[in-house]
């Protein structure tokens, strides 16, 4: 066992990806349609986490800190990609780990999340990952009241979309 800062950082990085990797993959899917873009975004987030890791002092919880980094990177990346390939986003071509979910309701949910505006999407993604209103407040900088109002509206909307899918089947 070694206390070398480089090794500690590596262990910490791998632990974070081990714990939050699936959640980060879902986050990428919530922002982007194309599988290739999602993979790139995942790597961008990983690189940002690696760079930001030495600055993490525990002032915020690990989860809040990680989602701050991930969403800041995701938003900037998605914005850049939208500018570059506006049309490609409509097509949503490449397959990836999260594309074509087995459960059609999940596909409806994913598509609905992708179509939300940037602020709503961030709030709902954090909510779906199980963050409390307080934690969402810390990640977004929005007030608890604003988050509450948004979530009430968004939950209803998403639930009705999924219920509509069930009725159609």
């Amino acid at each position, binding site marked *: 066992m070694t206390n070398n800062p480089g090794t500690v950082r590596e262990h910490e990085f791998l632990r974070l990806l081990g714990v939050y990797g699936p959640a980060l993959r*879902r986050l990428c899917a919530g922002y982007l349609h194309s599988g290739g873009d999602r993979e790139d975004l995942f790597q961008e987030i990983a690189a940002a986490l690696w*760079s930001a890791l030495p600055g993490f002092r525990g002032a915020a919880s690990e989860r809040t800190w990680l989602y701050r980094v991930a*969403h800041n990177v995701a938003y900037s990346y998605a914005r850049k990609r939208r500018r570059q390939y506006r049309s490609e986003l409509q097509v949503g071509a490449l397959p990836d780990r999260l594309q074509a979910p087995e459960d059609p309701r999940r596909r409806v949910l994913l598509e609905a999340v992708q179509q939300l505006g940037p602020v709503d999407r961030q709030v709902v993604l954090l909510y779906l990952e199980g963050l409390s209103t307080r934690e969402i407040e810390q990640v977004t900088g929005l007030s608890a009241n604003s988050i509450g109002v948004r979530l009430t509206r968004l939950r209803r909307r998403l639930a009705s979309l999924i219920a509509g899918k069930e009725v159609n089947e």
Partner: protein
Amino acid sequence: MSGDDSHGDDLRKLWQTTGEQPQREDHSMNLRLAREKQRSLFDVLREQDMTAYIISLSFAPLTAWCAWSGRRSLWLLAGYLLMTVTLAAGAAAVWRNARRARRAERIDLSRREHQQQLIRFHDARIRFSKSVKYWYAIPLFAGGGLVLYPITAHFLGRMGGLLLVAGFLLICWISVWHMHDVRGVADLRRRRDDLQQLLDEMNRTED
């Protein structure tokens, strides 16, 4: 339990169902990629004014050498020295800006704070771009004028030479103004407005 709460629980369960995901992903490749992708000062420079930086840095030694070679003519010495100092100052300013940008960049802020940080960064870039025509273009072209004037005056006479040099340098200055003030700033403003739009959307629901 209210209807909204039960909807919420169902949605969360549905969202977190990741049947297609491997149970354990090997992240050692991600570690390697993350190390490679780590932003260096040169990445920041590349996003900013890498061309201006390279031009300034490569021409400064050349103009310094010209100043030394032409030291017997006061016009050439003064002109090349002015250009050397301006080019060096230009490279230093771009370098300093990139360093500041990298130091100021914090990715672990809340969405709102991060957005405000990006807007401040764009504002600083706009101010810098707008100032280039004064502190960089004017002394650089004045230096060029001092070098060119004796040559043009020799062939066209004092007034003719002066007019030709002044006209040529004015065109150069207008090009720099157009490149930085019109095109460069317009692009930065577009990006800034985009950022401001999101911030406004966040603020709207706070009222």
